[in-house]
Each structure stands twice: as structure tokens, then as C-alpha cells.
């Protein structure tokens, strides 16, 4: 046993990368999801301009999540990807559509509505597939001989469809609260009005997923509801309630930043809850973190770089957000 438990450190780092991805790409995918609900083409331009300088960096966290999984937990990567074949490919193709739409919608007058639809549809499919993939992972994957042993449609279930919808709605909340923060005038008012239903639905769906998960498998139930776990873990739901109060208070009083921060908190808390359910599995009830881990030589080599590079990455990422701080306007950008 080395002085540092490298697999655990890496599980933490990958969890961080995925969380960073979910909250960052969450709000720009969310913009895509609420895209058709905005009032005018001008508002849609403004919405796109508000994330155009940062979306690419946001999506890089997804590459880090995938690449990190391959590097640190190759067995988990090799099992999960074939198991979630259809949702993963749907997610990638959705991201193709919405990624190119950022540029393409400025390159043509005639086909601009088409790329607007691509932006919306791509974001929707990407978000839905991510939620479905997550749900499928939570409900379990059958593994035999270091490989996926299930069928092509195992990922499809009422639970995974529900988590898919939950993520779409949750991203919609992040997107609309982001717009509240980044815009003003009529567009901001529209975003305020959108944030209410998305907020209420998000909260309801968090409740449904939380109550459904324990019934998927006894181990989840035991994790959350056995004594003394229930006492130790009770802050999680209580903080969710607190974040919800913060969200709706912010919306009611017209606060510009508070709703977005509260929505982020909801995501972080749900994610923490998920982590508590997962521990110590990499693939629930099939492969543990230590089983899936690459040899320490691999983990240590990449960790040396990550420890040095991640602070620098966070530094210039924050700087990039800082450069584009404040309200965004319709005519921003080089187009």
C-alpha cells in the first residue's frame, strides 16, 4: 500500500471533472434547451453570445472525464462505454449538432433557423442522453470476464428515462438562471419567468429520483436509511431544501446572481448524493474503484501532471470568464 491511495485520489479527480462538466456545460446546454422559448431571434443571438466564448472550455471537462476514466480506470471505461453504447453515441451526435451551430448560425441567413433547431435539438438530445446514461449506470450494468455482458437495450428503463428528463429540466433551470445573470431588459424578464417552472420541476424531480433510487437495490436503501447513516447524511436533503428556498427567494425578489448560484448548489448537492450512493463502486455493484484502477505507475504519472496543471487550468479558465464578465449584448462578438 503506497502512502497515498492513488485510485481513491483519481476517483475524486474524475468525480470533480464530471461535476465541473455538469455545472459548466449544464448551463450552456440549458440555454439550448430553452432556446425555442425565447421571444425573438435577437434574444437568441444574445443568449448564444453569452456562452460563445466559454462553451468550448466547458466541454473540455467532458473530454477530461472520458480521457481520465480511460487513463485511471480503463476497466470501467471498457465496460461502461459498450453498456451505454446508444446513449453515449446519441450524446456525441447531439453535441456535434449544437457545437457547430455556435458558428454555423452566423454563417448563413437562409439556413439560420435550421441551425437554431440544431442548437436546440442537439442540446436536448445531449442532455437527455447524459441523464439516461446516468440512470442506467445507477440501476446497474451486468459484467462478466472484464467485459459488458448485457444486451443492447439494457440501458432503457423507466428509471433511466426519468433521470434523462430530470437532467433536461435541471439544465433548463441552469440555463435560464444563467441568462438572468448575464442579460437585462425583456430577455432577462423572460428568463425570470422561465426559471420558475424549471425550478419547481427540478425540485420535484430531485425528490422523485431520491425516493426511487433506494428501491432499485437494497444497498442504496441501506446506505441512506440505516442508522446511523440517516443521521450523518441528513444534511444533504436539508441543504437541498435550503438551496431551493434561496432559488425561489432570489426569483421572487429579482436578484440577478442568487438564482444561478442556488441552481448550481442544487446540482452540487444532487451530485454529492449520487456520490454517496456510488461509493465505493466505480460501476455500481460490479466493479469497485480499486478493481477498475490502472496500475499505480499510470496513476502516479498522470497525477503528477494534474496536480501541477489543474490549478493553472482553473486560473486561466477563471480569467477567461472574468474577461467576459458583466451583461452581454446582442452585438457582442466578432461575427
Amino acid at each position, binding site marked *: 500500500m503506497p502512502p497515498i491511495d492513488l485510485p481513491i485520489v483519481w476517483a475524486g479527480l474524475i468525480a470533480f471533472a464530471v461535476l465541473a462538466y455538469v455545472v459548466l456545460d449544464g448551463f450552456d446546454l440549458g440555454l439550448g434547451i430553452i432556446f425555442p422559448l425565447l421571444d425573438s431571434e435577437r434574444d437568441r443571438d444574445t443568449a448564444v453570445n453569452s456562452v*460563445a*466564448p466559454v462553451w*468550448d*472550455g466547458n*466541454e*473540455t471537462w*467532458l*473530454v*477530461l472525464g*472520458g*480521457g*481520465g476514466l*480511460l*487513463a*485511471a480506470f*480503463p*476497466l470501467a*471505461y*471498457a*465496460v*461502461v*462505454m*459498450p453498456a451505454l*453504447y446508444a446513449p*453515449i*453515441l446519441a450524446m456525441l*451526435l447531439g*453535441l*456535434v*449538432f449544437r*457545437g*457547430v451551430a*455556435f*458558428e*454555423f448560425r452566423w*454563417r*448563413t441567413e437562409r439556413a439560420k433557423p435550421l441551425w437554431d433547431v440544431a442548437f436546440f435539438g442537439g442540446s436536448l438530445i445531449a442532455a437527455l442522453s447524459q441523464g439516461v446514461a446516468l440512470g442506467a449506470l445507477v440501476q446497474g450494468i451486468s459484467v462478466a470476464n*472484464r*467485459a*459488458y*455482458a448485457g444486451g*443492447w437495450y439494457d440501458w432503457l428503463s423507466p428509471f433511466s428515462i426519468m433521470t434523462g428528463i430530470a437532467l433536461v429540466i435541471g439544465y433548463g433551470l441552469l440555463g435560464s438562471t444563467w441568462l438572468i445573470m448575464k442579460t437585462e431588459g425583456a430577455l432577462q424578464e423572460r428568463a425570470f419567468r422561465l426559471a420558475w417552472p424549471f425550478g419547481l420541476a427540478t425540485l420535484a424531480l430531485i425528490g422523485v429520483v431520491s425516493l426511487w433510487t433506494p428501491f432499485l437495490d437494497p444497498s442504496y436503501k441501506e446506505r441512506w436509511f440505516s442508522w446511523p447513516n440517516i443521521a450523518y447524511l441528513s444534511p444533504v436533503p436539508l441543504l437541498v431544501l435550503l438551496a431551493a428556498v434561496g432559488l425561489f427567494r432570489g426569483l421572487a425578489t429579482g436578484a440577478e446572481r442568487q438564482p444561478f448560484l442556488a441552481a448550481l448548489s442544487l446540482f452540487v448537492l444532487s451530485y454529492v448524493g449520487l456520490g454517496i450512493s456510488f461509493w465505493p463502486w466505480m460501476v455500481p455493484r460490479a466493479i469497485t474503484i480499486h478493481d477498475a484502477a*490502472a*496500475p499505480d*505507475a*499510470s496513476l502516479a*504519472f*498522470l497525477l503528477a*501532471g494534474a496536480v501541477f*496543471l*489543474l490549478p493553472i*487550468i482553473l486560473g*486561466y*479558465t477563471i480569467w*477567461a470568464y472574468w*474577461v*467576459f464578465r458583466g451583461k452581454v449584448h446582442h452585438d*457582442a462578438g*466578432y*461575427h
Partner: protein
Amino acid sequence: MPELFDAVLLARIQFAFTVTFHILFPGFTIGLASYLAVLQGLALATGRQVYMDVYRYWLRIFAVTFAMGVVSGLVMSYQFGTNWSVFSDKAGPVIGPLMGYEVLVAFFLEAGFLGVMLFGASKVGPRLHFFATLMVALGTLFSAFWILSVNSWMHTPAGYGINEKGQFIPLDWWKVIFNPSFPYRLVHMVIACYLSTALVVGAAGAYHLLRDRGNQPAQVMFSMALWMAALVAPLQLVVGDLHGLNTLEYQPAKIAAMEGHFDGGRGVPLYLFGIPDMAGAKMDGAIAIPKLGSLILTHDPDGAVKGLKDFPRENWPNVDILFWSFRLMVGLGLLMIAMGLWSLVQRARGRLYDARWLMRMMVAMGPMGFVALIAGWFTTEVGRQPFTIYGLLRTSESVSPIAAPAVGASLLAFVVIYTAVFGAGIFYIFRLMRRWPGAEPDQPEIPPIRSAGITPAPAVAEQRGP
């Protein structure tokens, strides 16, 4: 049917299709990012507006290309798992960390500074903006470094061991990263990206010069591109030769297939043309120069070279593809060198911007850098077959446990969607290249003078000349 369309073949076609589309975009952005950095550097150093005009002209094209590179690259990073899960499990401990470094060192750097590069000119000073361009350019080169290290390791694995689970594990990272073929492949590829980009830039310049020989931004593009062709294309020939010698040492069967050498021996010929007959293990209708094959490969006319028959039949790569893809690449490279030499003659005579036939050749050569680049990739990758990790892990033993219909369905989705989406993107790039270089962004995209009445029109007319 199952013979023809088995899951392995479908997965291979899917990887080849998605990576071939993908390589175009980073190939172009590696070249363009460096070119944009040079232009901005020149603008800052000389204060000449024309460099910023050219910068702005290519910046939008860069943005469109970059977006396509990001999304098509994302697909690649997950495809190792979806279609090649056994390979991922076995090779992950070695190649995974290298790809991790690519993300940490390159992708974040590019993405972090791209926003400032594209949208931040009015928010940060010119020097900080230049810095952002430099960081993006650096990011593209770092990306090439790491992914080519991964790729090279699959060709010439080194510094590894195999553990009890059958996984490749790293023993010496230095040997893994700087594996034997990596330095050659890296230099060869980066030069290929620079040359391919130069040909596109030069073709756009030539296209506009053919309509107006006095257009200054177009002159800058045309002239800079031809310097690349004149100086770097010959260098590429030398680098390519060294890369080939390295391949001969580590993957002799690939060289034999590229050269169409079924029979080895001393003083082997160079086949200029011929039809490879894999079943009969011979070349049909070959036009050959005696001993030149040995001379090129061993730098000795009587040097000994192995032929395909010296290797087990089941380890042969596909000769039909390799023989021709290699010739296509080399032929186009020679054309680039010829064009570079021609441009030197025209320059010496002081008539570079009068050389209309040179301009026409430049326009025709515009896409040929990328054709050569893809032909080169087909040569090296098809030549790696039938292995994913050369000599160690067979392709047929690398694939995911996914049934053929699922792989086929996803392949179909990729073909349809990539063709539509990236086809549209490439169309937009062509349209952006048709814009008049030097025109302000708010002017019509196509030069004919239809902005009647508004002040820029005379300026445009004047720029176009008589």
C-alpha cells in the same frame, strides 16, 4: 453477409471514417493557429495593417474549423470505449495517461484562450490578445505532440510490460512517450499540417489575385504560402525519407507493402506503377526502375530489403491500399516541391504577382495538401494492420462485444450526420474564402459592387483595380 460485414470490419470502417473527417479539422487548425500567430506577430512588429486584414480573414475560418475539430474530436475520445473496449482495457494504463496529458496540457489551453482570441480583441489589449493567439497555437502543437505519441506507441510500442490481467503496463514513461517512431511521425505530421494549410491559404490568395493582382492581403497570402512550398516541401521530403527508414527498421512488412515488394532480396527495384495482386503475391504490369528500391530504402543499390513473402501471410497489411496511398502522397509532395521551385524562379524575375499560371496551379493545389495528408495517414494506419498494437495485439482481438447491427447502425448515423454537418461546414469555409480579403466585416461577403451609395463601395472598387 456475415463474412463481409462482421462487427470488426464495421468498427474499423467507423473508426476510419470518423478519424478521417476529424483529422482534416485539427490538421487545418494546427496550421492556421500558427499562421495567425505569425500574422499577428508581424502586425505588432511592423504596424502594417495588411497583416491584421489577413488575420481577420482567416480568423473566422479558424473559428468554424475549430468548432468542427472539437466536436469530431469528442467523438474520437469516446469511440475507443464504445467500439474498442478490449483495446481500451488492455492499453489504457499506457496510452490513457498520455491522452490525459493531451487534455490537461493542450485542450484546456486551446479552449481557455480561444474565447479571448475570437471575441476578446476589444476587451483586452493587443499584446494580451496576441498572447491568447500564441497560447491557442501552442495548444494545437501540444495536442499534436501527445496524440502522436499515443499513435506512435501503437506502431512501435516500447517501455511497457504485461501484467497478470493481460494489460499493458508502463515500465519506463520516457521510452513510452519517445518511442522509436514518435520523433519522425511528429515532425512529419506537423510539417504536413503546415504545408496543407499553406496550400489552402495560397489558393485563396491566388483565387483573389487572379481577379485583382493588386489586392494586398491576397498578395501576402500567396507569397507566404509559396515560401512554405519552396522551403518546407523539400524539407518534408527529407523528413519523410527518415520516417520511412525508421519504418523499415520497425515495421518492414509495411514498407514492403508500400513498395509492392512481394519478393525481397538484394538490389530490389522501385515500382513506379503496377497493379498489386495480393492473392497471387505478385505485381502485374509493373513499371520498375532496377535497384532504385534498394537505393532509396537502404541508401545502397545492392542493399538487402525484405519482401512480404518473408512475413507470415496472416500478418500482411492490405497491399492494394498501401501501394497507391503511398504513391499519391509522394506524388503530391513532388508537385508541391515543383510549385515551390517555380515560385522561386518567378520571384527572382520579380514577376510573382504576374504569374497567372502559377496562380492557377496554386488554386488547383489548394486541397492537395489535405489529400496528401489523408493518403499518408491511410498509408501508416492501414500499414499497421492487422494489429492495433503492432505485433502484440491483433485488431480482431481489440473490439468491443457489440453486435454487428449496433455498430452498423451507428456507422450509418455517423456517415449521414457527418456528411451533412461537416459538409455544410466545409461549404461555409469555401464561402468565407470567397470573401474579398481586406474588406470590413460589415461589407457584403461577395465583392461585386452592390453596396451602392454607401461609402465603402468606392474603396472596394479602388482596391479591385481596373
